[in-house]
Structure formats: structure tokens, C-alpha cells
């Protein structure tokens, strides 16, 4: 477990920094309120509509495809770790796997699965 101590320290430090920044700005900063300032920030434009707007179902396709290729990438981690021991055999094994998914990628791009219009 010792090798995970740095991860824990990084996590704690990250949390502390975030908390310090939030509290420091509320304590030290000068507060001015106005109707415009209290609105949610929307790239400098006056906000329009609800932030809870409904997404188009088209984005769901992108999300599902993301999961599929995320799972593919997950298989690459252990492969990279043992790559040297496996040698050519492992290379061909992964090549076949990736080739199958490249077929899927080409198919998906050509069918317009990634176009958002």
C-alpha cells in the first residue's frame, strides 16, 4: 500500500488548496453586489434560458461511443506494462484487437456517428 501514499497526499493537498482559495477570496476580497453581477456567468452575454436545458439525444451516441473506446484503451494499460516480456506475440495480439476496433472507428466516422449536426 505504501506506493499509494503520494496519491493520498496529492489528493489531500488538492482539497486543501481548493478550500484555501475559496475561503481566502471570500475573506480577503471586497464584495460588491449588483443585479448584473449576481447573474450566472455565461461568457459575458446576458444569460438566456435555464441551465437545465434538455440535451439533444444525438449527444448520447457520442457518449456511448466514448465508453466503447474507453474500454478499448483500458486494455492498452496492462499491455503497455508487459509489452517487453510479450515481444512480437503481444504486439500482434494487440494489433489484431486494435484493427477490429479501427474497423469500427472508420465505420462510425463514415456513417457520420461523430457529426453533431
Amino acid at each position, binding site marked *: *500500500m505504501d506506493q*499509494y501514499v503520494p496519491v493520498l497526499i496529492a489528493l489531500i493537498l488538492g482539497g486543501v488548496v481548493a478550500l484555501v482559495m475559496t475561503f481566502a477570496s471570500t475573506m480577503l476580497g471586497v464584495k460588491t453586489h449588483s443585479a448584473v453581477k449576481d447573474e450566472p456567468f455565461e461568457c459575458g452575454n446576458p444569460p438566456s434560458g435555464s441551465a*437545465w*436545458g*434538455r*440535451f439533444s*439525444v*444525438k*449527444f*448520447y*451516441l457520442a*457518449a*456511448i*461511443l*466514448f*465508453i*466503447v473506446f*474507453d*474500454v*478499448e*484503451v*483500458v*486494455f492498452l*494499460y*496492462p*499491455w503497455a*506494462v*508487459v509489452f517487453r*516480456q*510479450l515481444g512480437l*506475440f*503481444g504486439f500482434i*495480439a*494487440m494489433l*489484431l*484487437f*486494435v484493427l*477490429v*476496433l479501427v*474497423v*469500427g*472507428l472508420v*465505420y*462510425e466516422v463514415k*456513417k*457520420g*456517428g461523430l457529426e453533431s449536426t
Partner: protein
Amino acid sequence: MDFVTFFALAIPLVVVAVMVIAHPSPVYSALFLVMTLFLLAVYFLFLNAHMVAALQIIVYAGAIMVLFLFVIMLLNLQSDTLRTQRHGLGRVAIIGGVILLAELGLLLQGSSSELAESSLPENFGTVEALGSQLFTKYLLPFEITGILLLVAVVGAVVLAKR
């Protein structure tokens, strides 16, 4: 895993898990679910399942949660519409929970501590050990997974693209 660490992890885990079902806003529920999955990943680390812990964060807290949030945004559920429909499920959940507790109790009675202390092989559960098994012994399942993912891509495009 000693007593103190166990409870230091278990109490926040149970709290955030309860918040997942107790919070009225679905988006907050989803974020609490992310925390639950993170804390579960730490448990996997204590069980020497290093790769599973990494997968828990990459796939579940990463990809699956994105999908959850997408669904919430697609359906645009407001917290008040959800609250009215909650009744009826509670009773089923309580019955299921009681059965699960009884099962766990039975399992705890049956198993002795000797199982827990049996020694693990060196490198058990590391990414390296998993990789060396996956690409040799489990080579064929690995390649079939590629086909399975391809079918998933085709299926998603066929059904969702007009």
C-alpha cells in the same frame, strides 16, 4: 486492513452512498455516486486488486458516470417530478435489503478467518500480473472482446443515427 482504516473508509462510503439515493437533485446524486465509486476503488487497493481499482476509476467514475449525466440531461428530470413517484419502491428496497443482510450474516457465520489470511502470490492483482495473464492465457477472450466492442459500435450507430 486494520480496524481504524476500515471505519475511516467505511463511514464516509456509507454516508455518500446514502446521499446518492437521498439527494433530491439527480445531478447531485450522480456526483455522490462518483464519490462512492472512488471510495470503493480504495477498498480494491486494500484487497490487492490494483488493476481493478484503476478500472473502477477510469471506466466507472469516468466513462459510465458521463453516460449517467447525459441521461439525466437528456431526460431533464426536475427534482420535484421525481419526488412524487418515489413511493412503492421503498418497501421492495427494504425487503431486498433485509434479505441481503441475512445472506451476509449467514456467509459470515460459515466462513472462518483462515480464508482471509491465506497468502497471495507475489505481484497478485498488479497491472503487470493481469497483463501477463490477459495476453497469454486469456488471449482468445481478449480478441473476442474486440468483436464484442465492434458490435456495440455498430449497434449504437444503427439505433441512434437516423
